[in-house]
């Protein structure tokens, strides 16, 4: 078990290296450098050139890359051009919001998807199943930004139930109940929207897996033992049907963090996705590079997590 995980981690190393080279190249292709932001009409061009020389920007690329990696590994992503503070600080500030949003979304997604998918599969062709299929189909087809807009317009503006932007109201005292409640209120609309979108694939998976599992021979064996119908489902069908979904949990968790660009932008929620777009608009390239790198590694961790989860839940994989 631990050996498998360790080997999987070792296998990640070349991937991380390729990823970092790729992103470094991307960063180099982006216009501007840390000193672009300092330039005002009355700066001395020679002074800028001197600064560049000092921070190694005129070194050969391989050297620059190694330096960049060394710094990145210690969490030093340089300075934000626009905000004039360390990139790490800028990102950390927003990351916490995204984590909260992702967590709530994750919980909501499975709270909705698990019962819907499993029950729709069990009662295939019932009215309930048909409604789930339609819901599933619409949530699959609807573009995220359209749903987000409609949700914001309807629940935010028309009904006015939820705040329409931000992650909290300014002026509330941290630690009080109204502060926490306010935070939650800001979270709900984007989280529900994101969860509605994320349920589509999971429900579809679960439903077809349940339908498929129902016809398996081991289910017939269970019935021939005299296992009551309810137990046939809980002990045999649902467990086997959940397997492929369990294996995507890893992707889902990390995918949510990267996938919130639309949601955060539209709901004005100050997380990493919005930071990314804002940085692009403000041409804050050091932040962009750091974000892409973090999310790349985040995706890698996701695949690792998925593999580990699968090897835990499926004994057939555990052996190898």
């Amino acid at each position, binding site marked *: 078990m631990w050996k498998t995980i360790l080997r999987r981690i070792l296998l990640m190393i070349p991937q991380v290296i390729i990823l970092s080279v790729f992103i470094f190249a991307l960063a180099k292709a982006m216009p501007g450098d840390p000193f672009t932001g300092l330039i005002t009409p009355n700066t001395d061009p020679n002074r800028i050139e001197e600064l560049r020389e000092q921070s190694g920007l005129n070194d050969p690329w391989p050297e620059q890359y190694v330096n960049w990696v060394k710094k990145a590994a210690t969490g030093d992503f340089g300075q934000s051009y626009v905000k004039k503070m360390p990139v790490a600080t800028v990102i950390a500030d927003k990351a916490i919001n995204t984590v909260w949003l992702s967590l709530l979304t994750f919980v909501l997604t499975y709270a909705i998807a698990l019962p819907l998918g499993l029950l729709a599969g069990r009662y295939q062709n019932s009215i309930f199943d048909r409604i789930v299929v339609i819901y599933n189909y619409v949530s699959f087809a609807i*573009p995220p930004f359209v749903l987000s807009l409609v949700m914001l*317009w309807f629940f935010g*503006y028309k009904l006015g139930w939820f705040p329409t932007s931000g992650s909290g109201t300014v002026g509330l005292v941290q630690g009080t109940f109204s502060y926490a409640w306010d935070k939650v209120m800001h979270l709900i609309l984007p989280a529900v929207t994101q969860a509605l979108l994320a349920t589509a694939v999971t429900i579809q998976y679960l439903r077809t897996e349940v339908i498929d599992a129902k016809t398996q021979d081991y289910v017939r064996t269970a019935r021939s033992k005299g296992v009551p119908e309810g137990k046939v489902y809980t002990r045999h069908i649902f467990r086997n049907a959940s397997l492929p979904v369990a294996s995507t949990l890893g992707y889902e968790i990390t995918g949510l963090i990267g996938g919130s660009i639309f949601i955060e932008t539209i709901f004005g929620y100050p997380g990493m996705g919005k930071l990314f777009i804002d940085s692009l608009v403000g041409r804050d390239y050091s932040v962009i590079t750091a974000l892409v790198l973090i999310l790349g590694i985040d995706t890698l961790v996701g695949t690792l997590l998925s593999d580990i989860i699968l090897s835990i839940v499926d004994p057939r994989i555990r052996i190898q």
Partner: protein
Amino acid sequence: MKKTKKKFDNGSESLPPMGFNVIVREFSKDKIAMISLAIILITLIGVFAGSIIIDQGALMKVDIFNSYASPSSEHWLGTDISGRDIFGQLIIGAKNSLLIGFSITIITSIIGVTIGIISGFYGGVIDNILMRIVDFVMILPMQMIIIVFVTIIPKYTIFSFILIMSAFYWVGKARLFRSKTLSEGRRDYVSASKTLGTGDLKIMFREVMPNLSSLIITNLTINFAANIGIETGLSFLGFGLPSDTPSLGTLIGYAKTSDVLADKVWVWLPASLLILVLMLSINYIGQAIGRSADAKQRLG
């Protein structure tokens, strides 16, 4: 039906290959699929006929005095911030979205299916190399990287947008069709063809590929919808089509300001509805085709 599950059945009930008539029959049994097809056809005709009539240059001319005009007989769906006609932009935007979605789908399908089949058929070293490349692209945060590319590419056009998108979105297909080729290649007719002296290329594309055709078509349709979604999504954020090119996404993007979202519904709602209807219809068609490919799910 339990009976048909028997391993060595008489065969008379085993699954027939999916042909064009099976699709036709599946559609004729499925009203929603027919309606979806009609919607798509009408939209296509309307959009392409409209785009011939409409002069894009004139349409995109800024008319500051007409900013955010409400719908009227002159501007059926009102105007945007620069006083440009929404209805006209809707038509041209839809045309652009459809064409771009279509191009990306075709390009990625050709690359993905070819690489997938080659990889799955040969296995071994070739497969290893191709799949490592696919693995690498898969772990990239694609959405972000595409956006970054869009912003740093000089002389950015529709064409470069299609290329950037295609460069990333073939990998999923390659992986899908590789696994399908692997399982298809395990079937004895592939071995038979090898012993019958048929060449590798012919086996891959004349023997194996026809057996994946239903999957390819299904995947193509659903991908078409997804690609339209991605294009409009990026345009919505402002990182899709160039700003002087009308796009459904750009129209909906105006709603990023709360004033437009809350009070000037005519700017963004028609485009949203159009996208929604298009996506629903195309997806439904894709699913109907998918059903006709799967004998178990056929309606009749």
